C-alpha cells in the first residue's frame, strides 16, 4: 500500500517547517490536502526550502521529496516542476496522483511569490 520510500519520508521528513522568505500554498483542508512551501534563494540557487502539509502519507512524502530535489536548483525550476518523478519514486497509486497537483500548484505559487519579490528588488 505504502512503499518503503513513503514510509521513510513520512516518518522522517527532514525539510518540514516554515521559513521567512518566498512562500506558496495550495489546496485546503476541506479538499483533504493542503500544502505550503517556503524558500530562500542565495547566489541564484535555492539555498533553503521547507514544506508544511495536511494530507495523506503520499502527499507528505511527496512534499519531502520535492524539496529534496529542488534544493540547490535555480528558483525557476519550481515553475516547471511536475509530479511524475516523485510519483514514480514513491509508487503513488494512480487514484492518488491527482493530489500531487496541489504540490505543483504550491510550488508555482512559491516561485511567483519569489519572482514578484525579486522584481520588486530590481525596481
Amino acid at each position, binding site marked *: 500500500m505504502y512503499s518503503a520510500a513513503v514510509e521513510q519520508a513520512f516518518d522522517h521528513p527532514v525539510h518540514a517547517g*516554515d521559513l521567512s522568505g518566498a512562500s506558496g500554498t495550495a489546496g485546503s483542508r476541506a479538499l*483533504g490536502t493542503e500544502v505550503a512551501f517556503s524558500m530562500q534563494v542565495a547566489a541564484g540557487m535555492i539555498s533553503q526550502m521547507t514544506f508544511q502539509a495536511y494530507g495523506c502519507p503520499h502527499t*507528505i512524502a511527496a512534499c519531502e521529496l520535492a524539496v529534496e530535489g529542488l534544493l540547490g536548483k535555480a528558483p525557476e525550476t519550481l515553475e516547471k516542476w511536475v509530479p511524475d518523478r516523485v510519483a514514480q519514486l514513491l509508487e503513488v497509486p494512480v487514484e492518488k496522483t491527482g493530489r500531487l497537483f496541489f504540490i505543483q500548484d504550491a510550488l508555482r505559487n512559491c516561485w511567483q511569490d519569489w519572482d514578484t519579490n525579486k522584481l520588486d528588488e530590481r525596481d
Partner: protein
Amino acid sequence: MIYLDYAATTPVDENVVDVMCQCLGSQELFANTASSHAAGRKAHKAVEAARDRVAGLINAAARELIWTSGATESDNLAIIGAAHFRRLRGKHLVTSVTEHKAVVDSFHLLEKEGFTITWLHPDEFGVISLQDLEAAITDETTLVSIMHVNNETGVIQDIGAIGEICRRRDVLFHVDAAQSFGRLPIDVRRDQIDMLSLSAHKAYGPKGVGVLFLDSERIRRVEPLLHGGGHERGLRPGTLATHQILGMSRALEIAHQNLAQEPQHISVLRDYLWQLVGVIPSIQLNGHPSRRACHILNVSVADVEGESLLYGMRNFALSSGSACISDSAEPSYVLKSLGRSDQLAQGSIRFSLGRYTTRAELDQAADTFIATVTRLRDLSPNQQSVGSG
C-alpha cells in the same frame, strides 16, 4: 502488531479452535446432516444441540433459529424476507441512517423496489429518539430495524423500549445484534424482538457463520433469499457446516459465560484509554458518553488528516470507521450523521478492545496516538483554507 480492532473481527477463542478442529478431523461428524444414515444423524444431532444451546443464550427456542453465513445474510434475510412476505400488508419500513451496510443496503434495495423507508436520524450522541421512532410508524408500516450496538461508535439503542413500541403498534422489530452479543445481555422475549441477527466472528467464533432468530409466534414465514432443498425450514438451503455451527455455539457460550465479568473489565480498559488520549487538544469522543458498549472508543481529532493519522498508527490494527467500508476513502456515514464534519469524520480512529487487550497495549497505543497527532499538527500549514494563487 497490537490488535485493537475487535469490532472488525475477533480472533477465534482457543477452545473454539479445538472444537472446530476436532469436528473437522472427526471420523464421525463430517457427514451431511441431511443424510438419514447413522453418521448423518449424529451430525444432525450435534447441530441441533448447538442450535438449542445458542437459542438458550438469547431466551429463544431452538426451532426459532436459522443458521446463516453471517450477520450480513441474517440481516438481508430478515429485512428483505419479511418485507417481501408482508408486502400486501404494507410497504412502509423504518430504520436508521446509522445501521450497518448490510441493513442499509437491504433497505436501499427495497426502496428501489417501491417500498417507502423512513430513515431515522440519531441525535449528536448517536441515539435514536423513541418519539421519532413512534411517530414514524404508520398503518402501512410492517417492519422496524434498529441495531443494538453500533459498530463504529458502540452506541447502544434502547431496544427494549423500541420493542415495546413495535409490539404495541403491531409492527415487526428486527435487531442487528452482531456487535452486542457477549457485550450486553440479549433477551428476545423481554425486549419483544421478533427477528435478531448474530455473527460468530464478532464474538471469538469463526467467520462465515451466523444466526437469524425468528419469533415463532409472530413470524409465520419470511421469503427466502436462497432456494433449493428444504433445509432450515425451507428458509435457508445448503449443506449445514457442522464445524462452523459447533464453533459458533461454543464461542457464544463462552462469551455468554463471560458476560458477568468481561464487559466490565473491558470497559475499565476502554475508560483508561480515553483518560490517556483525552488530553489531546481538540479531541472529541464520537458517540454517547455513557450509553456505549464496552469495547469501542471512537475519537475524532481536529486538524489531522485521517489517512496519515491511521498510517502513523500502523503498528496497531485499528480502523478509522467500519472495517467493512475501510476500503473506501469516503468519510464514515455514521460519524457524519452525528454531525461531524468530513474532516472530523475522516480524522477519526476506532479503538476496539477485547478479551486479550492489556493495559500495556493501551499505553503504547496512547503514546503513539498522542505523538502522531502532535507531529501531524506540527507538520500542517497554520492557515485554514488557503486558496491556490
